């Protein structure tokens, strides 16, 4: 299952960011996009729509759950919440991602072990 933003992000990256955002605070789709773009200082240009297939995958894997409700701005929204399984999955992913990233950094910049 390839996706259009595979050139920009590696597979699973978007899911990871969604889970991380949701770990801080439950949110609906629109808020998630805003959040990710702001936190990355707009470095990551995520096409808004691509968020939804990722959300469906997370839903199906039961890593998040969704519920219809009313937002603080009084809009009808579908709010996503991370599940216990989602939290576990996120932690695993982050640690394996960090190890991988460290590895890549070491190969690309021998001598410097910092991440930017």
């Amino acid at each position, binding site marked *: 299952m390839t996706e259009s933003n595979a050139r920009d992000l590696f597979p699973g990256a978007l899911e990871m960011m969604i889970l991380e955002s949701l770990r801080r605070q439950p949110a*609906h789709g*629109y808020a998630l996009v805003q959040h990710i773009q702001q936190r990355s200082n707009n470095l990551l240009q995520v096409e*808004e729509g691509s968020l939804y*297939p990722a959300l*469906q995958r997370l839903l*199906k894997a039961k890593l998040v759950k969704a519920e219809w409700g009313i937002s603080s701005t009084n*809009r009808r*929204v*579908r709010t996503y919440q991370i599940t216990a399984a989602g939290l576990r999955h996120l932690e695993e992913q982050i640690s394996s991602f960090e190890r991988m990233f460290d590895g890549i950094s070491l190969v690309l910049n021998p001598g410097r072990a910092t991440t930017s």
Partner: protein
Amino acid sequence: MNWIPQIFRRHSIYNDLSEEIRLHIEERAEQLMREGMSAKEAEREARRAFGNRTLVEQRSREVWQWPTLESIASDVRLAVRQLRKSPGFTMAAVLTLTLAIGANAVVFGLLDGLVLRPLNVPQAESLYGTHYGDNPTWQSYPNYIDLRDRNRSFEDLAAFNMVLGVGFDTGKDPIAANGFAATGNYFDVLRIHPWLGRLFHASDEHGPNSAPYIVLTYAYWHTRFHDDRGVVGRTVEVDKHPFTIIGVTPPGFQGTIMFLAPDFFMPIVNEEEMGAPSLKTRGTEHALFESLGHLKPGVTPAQAVADVGAVNAYLEKAYPREIVHHDTALSREGLTSFGPAVRAFVAGLMVLSGLILLAACANLGSLFAARAADRSREVALRLALGSSRKRILRGLLTEALVISLAGGAAGLLVSFVLLRRMSVWQPIPGVPLHLPVTPDAMLYVVALGLALLSGFLFGIVPIRQILGANPYEIIKAGSSAGTGRRLTLRDVLLVAQIAICAVLVTSSLVAVRGLERSLHSKFGFDPRDTMTAGVDLATAGYSADKVPAMQRRMIEAMGTIPGVKAVGLVNGYPPLVYTAGNRADVYKEETRELKPRNAAAMPFRYEVSPGYFEAAGTNLLAGRSFTWQDDKGGPAVAVVNSDFAVRMFGSVTGAAGRNYRLQDGTLVQVVGVVEDGKYMSLTELQQPAMFLPFLQSPSSAAYLVVRSKRDPQQLAAAMRRKVRELDAGLPVDTQTWSQMLEVVLFPARVATMALGVLGLMGAMLSITGIFGMAAYSVSTRLRELGIRMALGAAQKEVLHTALGRPFKLLAIGSAAGLALGLLGTRVLAFIVYQATPRDPFVLAGVVVAMALLGLLATWIPAQRALSVNPLILLRED
């Protein structure tokens, strides 16, 4: 099976998704508007930022979709692969289901077509027929008029009669056709509108023979007139009387009798010129088949019965000589007085086909259980290798599903073909039988539902076996484990199945015996070696005074045919033909007030010629038969059957010379007594009958009865030739008497055929069941058998080891089934004439049949057991 609930959930998932995306874009647009964009710009920008919405939605859906489809496909592929590895099991299971589903679908088709589905007319639910009198055929036209005008329950009341086998001549060729003679308001009462031209109405009737109009049914218009729209206005001849075609009824309308489709309709006022008695006569001479109408809104059937009953009570007072008040009943229009019989028959079939389904389920259950046991090692291995039990069960259930669908589809196909053939079936020449059993969507639903239900039910039989499996034990013990001596579920299922099959075999044998007996029971005449010729002199224009002379010439001409032993003539129809018969009230000599309540008996009435009893093979018990001197000039005489003699005069021997009265007061002297017989139907109780000399009450329509041992075809040809020599323009209808008995034998024949087929299916099912059991028993103990043979066991001992158990089960099941079947035949006796369970032939037949089935089914497994080569076998494992 995760994908099953998902299929149902998916719809709401998709809806949520679309809604969510719509709201997302909306929110973005509002945000942009707050930042100062115009509404239009904002919306465009929001859409751009979101990207390709359709694609996003599709991608999101695929998340749910693809694995689902893929897993169904892979489950099914796996199941099919597994099933192909064991073709024997698959074939047996699919065949079993095909039989069961096929039988049940056909029976459901009958139920649906004959009982559940109302007549194909508007608002059929409020349409009722009035059964007035002993049976619906006993209502005169004046009676109907009174009932129509005096009742307060029906919106309007119509009536009809059947006009069977009349010559329908379009100018080129007269062909026998069948129609309804209906009252003018018939179509208006039924709310039927013309498809073409117009239909007749009450306003068309102006007294006898005033409305020479013909309305064609769509089907007849289509087949005989090839959809020719120019047919309206054309003149045709019906039995040489001119009629004008005025219209065509809409397709789908086939009159008001379920299984009789008429070709045309004519006004009942014109039935008289076709030879029917005058419409003015009150009493039982002229009979309407049935009157019918829609109940007024708010009137219940019970109220209507009371109302019609009150009218009848009034009529009885007003016309005491003609009318006797009988019970009144209403019935749903369509099945007429056959309703109860048809419903009982269909109910009986449903019970039996239900038994077939049960037997099939038992068969499937034991097949699945055997298969699961066979695969226990494979399952254990898979479990040991880490496969989940859920995954294995899912595979098994998918297999059950594939088999159910295959069996269900095959069964449906079979039933479809059978029902199609039934709906165009014309078993009796000259009778427009029409079974409205066209398969419809409901049938598919029922058939597939039954298939899935039975497949699933018995797909889960082995679940316990698998869930309880301990991989370690099974692998350690090897595949031959578990062939203990204790009673298994499989044994119980097999016994149940064999018992059910034995019930079916028993009932079909009982039915066949019953039919055989009714074919050879005493009819009171001998239909063998008897040819009949129907001749209606009225169709050739003979006036009433010329009829007797011409009939006598015909009788004498028949007598000159070489090989003819006796010739006679009977007015109307001979006994037991077309379930037709005339009955008339008779009175004791001393009775003064001749009204129905005082009648001494109501015998069947036949008018016959001299020589008739000899030709019919009816034995004369006392006195004499008729002579040519018993004519209008002579005294009124009669020959009666012995039931009549005993009823009226106390004995057969004392009857000759005694007198009784007819309805019109004529004093009749009994000159002879003949043996009892059957007159209207085979199942009737013994009825009285009287035979009057035909010369004393002549009628133009009569049957010649000719007794001869000559070849029927040659005889018929010779008879037609003789009639042609007398009058070349006289149509003759020759049939053997046995052929004409077809109609009265039809119900018994159909019942026997149905039971025979079901019995055969039961037999096939028990073969597959026993075969499966025996084959399985042999295959699991192959190694043991090999060792026994290597150690020197004799063939007999090997066979005993391998097949003893299946045979024991067969014996238990057959005994149980036989006992149940014999109890059940009490029920059968209601449908099949003379079905009795206390018949050594049936008992022996069932035992022999079941034993033969057992031998047949165990033959192949026995061969396999005997051909075991211990060397090869022991090397294998």
